[in-house]
């Protein structure tokens, strides 16, 4: 467990009301968690604020995590809320180095939700759980009046055991370490934006929702001792995840913009709307930081996994500009890549 979080200056939460930005995964979300919620529950395990809480139990390291899913629309190309609910929690455990051993699911359902829709989601969850090799062993259901939630909200809880070969810790990251991504970014967030139908854009795009455990397994086999840190870049995108790492390890991160994998359609949508793909959510990708000697081996390990052909080495850790992420263009131009502020909003300027 890292003491980095305890040493960080605490953010203050002084907002007068909750805004959508507090759920977007960027700065406002951090303020809410670090300024209001975490201090209230204060304890050493929580203080690390990583994707999963890890604590010792009977000689092993147990990882446990919870995630709520409120996506709208419920169904979209490539998946549905059910897929996200299973894969998201499996992935939070995976990037903590733990194979998911069991999941639980809590449903909050809106009166009036057609049973067929619920059936479809439950079946999606069952299928995703089968694919991920993890049983859903229990949970809860509640119903609220019509209009009190968007059809359905799902929260899943997961537990797993951290692989003993791993010592993941932002504090273990060193200057010179390599940054890898498992595949093209931005697919999920753009798919959802288009699926809402308000912007009248069409594209042949699907959410990338899937379990990233196979990537983690492959990395452990290839270079467990050199694997420093992993994250699944969901809300807030790659930019937010790497900014959090830069802050926690107090080093700088450089991204080579030309090397970041991106589907043509995601790029097209981002160019039309004026969005930065680095801020867009992913639901089936993995960021990993490995020791430089293991970089090529780690890349090969990711690319060897079916669905991992798009994996790339995208940057490295440096001592300079500690705490920030910088993008570099092929001609030597630089820009600071900031954490997401609020929801990504299309712009016309």
């Amino acid at each position, binding site marked *: 467990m890292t003491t980095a979080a305890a040493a960080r200056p605490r953010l203050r939460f002084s907002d007068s009301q909750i805004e959508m930005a507090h759920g977007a995964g960027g700065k406002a979300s951090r303020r809410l968690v670090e300024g209001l919620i975490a201090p209230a529950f204060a304890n050493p395990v929580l203080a690390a604020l990583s994707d999963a809480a890890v604590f010792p139990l009977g000689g092993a390291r147990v990882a446990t995590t919870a995630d709520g899913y409120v996506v709208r629309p419920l169904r979209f190309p490539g998946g549905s809320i059910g897929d996200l609910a299973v894969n998201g929690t499996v992935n939070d455990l995976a990037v903590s180095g733990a194979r998911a051993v069991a999941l639980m699911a809590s449903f909050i359902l809106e009166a009036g939700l057609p049973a067929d829709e619920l059936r479809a989601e439950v079946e999606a969850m069952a299928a995703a759980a089968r694919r991920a090799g993890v049983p859903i062993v229990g949970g809860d259901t509640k119903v609220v009046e019509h209009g009190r939630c968007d059809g359905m909200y799902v929260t899943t809880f997961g537990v797993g055991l951290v692989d003993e070969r791993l010592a993941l810790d932002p504090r273990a990251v060193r200057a010179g370490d390599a940054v890898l991504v498992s595949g093209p970014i931005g697919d999920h967030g753009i798919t959802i934006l288009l699926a809402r139908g*308000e912007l009248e854009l069409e594209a042949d795009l699907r959410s990338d929702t899937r379990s990233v455990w196979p990537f983690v397994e492959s990395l452990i086999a290839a270079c467990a001792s050199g694997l420093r840190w992993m994250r699944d870049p969901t809300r807030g995108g790659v930019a937010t995840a790497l900014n959090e790492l830069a802050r926690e390890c107090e080093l700088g991160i450089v991204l080579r913009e030309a090397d970041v994998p991106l589907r043509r359609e995601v790029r097209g949508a981002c160019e039309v709307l004026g969005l930065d793909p680095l801020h867009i959510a992913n639901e089936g990708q993995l960021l990993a930081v490995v020791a430089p000697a293991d970089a090529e081996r780690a890349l090969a390990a990711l690319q060897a996994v079916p669905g991992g052909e798009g994996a790339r080495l995208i940057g490295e850790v440096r001592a300079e500009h500690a705490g920030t992420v910088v993008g570099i263009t092929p001609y030597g131009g630089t820009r600071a890549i900031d954490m997401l502020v609020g929801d990504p909003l299309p712009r016309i300027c």
Partner: protein
Amino acid sequence: MTTTTGMKYVDEFRDPVLISAVAQEIARTVDPARHYRIMEVCGGHTHSIYRHGLRDVLPANVELVHGPGCPVCVLPTGRVDDGLAIAAQPGTMLTCFGDMMRVPGTKGTPLELKARGADIRMVYSPLDALKLARDNPRTQVCFFAIGFETTAPSTALTLLEARELGLRNFSVFSNHVTIVPAIRAILDSPDMRLDGFVGPGHVAAITGCRPYEFVARHYGKPVVVAGFEPLDLLEAILMVLRQIRAGEAKVENQYRRIVPWEGNPAALRALALVFELRPYFEWRGLGFISQSALKLKDAFAAWDSEVRFAVPGVRVTDPRAAQCGEVLKGVLKPPQCKLFGKECDPEHPVGALMVSSEGACAAYYRYARTAEVAHA
């Protein structure tokens, strides 16, 4: 970013080899003993400069000064309040571009008011607002129109269609402004010493290049109308520097694949049909400027939000410590404002320059804090 296939008319103008070639030519063109101050007028250019890290490839003695061509940045708080006052009226829906959603009014941003129950929706096009009006016949839909001459023709065509359809529940709150008065205000400002201008490429796609001839003729400064990709901006800067070296001052068109010298006649006709110039309009930081903004003609009164709704019309001055005006004119760089990065940051913006994606302060805050990395 690596993609499976590229984007035509974009990627060619981001070619690293060509960019390096132009950068080297720029380095050979400048007089090392001289300091050059070139203003890019358009906020879209400001955004592009930072987004592509272009300052890193320019010689240290070429300084880019950010101009006031950011329509969100120059909108005074009072006008934002007026728009939000419309949204607060029952049975009304306010529609606006994404750029507006986080701009602070006195009582909050559109996003915050939306969170408190106001019907405020983001649209990509004024035609989307028109569609919302048709789909919600019992709701009064107001479109909060912002933008320079690039965007005003689109609003004009939308109004023409609203009139054709005889829609009774659609109106436009026009905050369109024109670029020439802003350029003139900069040139007339005593604190300003500029050597040349990078001209607004997409505004010029509508207006053509002629409107900028006064800068060369009366003020003796070169103007090069530029596109928005890195190669466009660098080529335009090179063209400005070459004029300076040759002792010339004229208007040139770098963005020839898009901008016709005479502008877009259909767009100019649409503007003339629908809009007229306000006698004066207040610009944040620049004060009242005459003949600088567009209002709907009387023939379109039925679709004019300022006729349909009562708005407070109150002037709201910026907090005294905020130096938005000086930054807009390029007199101060964003970090020189006392509030920069302290009371004013993208999450808690005091002025719109920190909120708008093309505002100089936001661009600086987001993109420019680590310039020294490039050569590490």
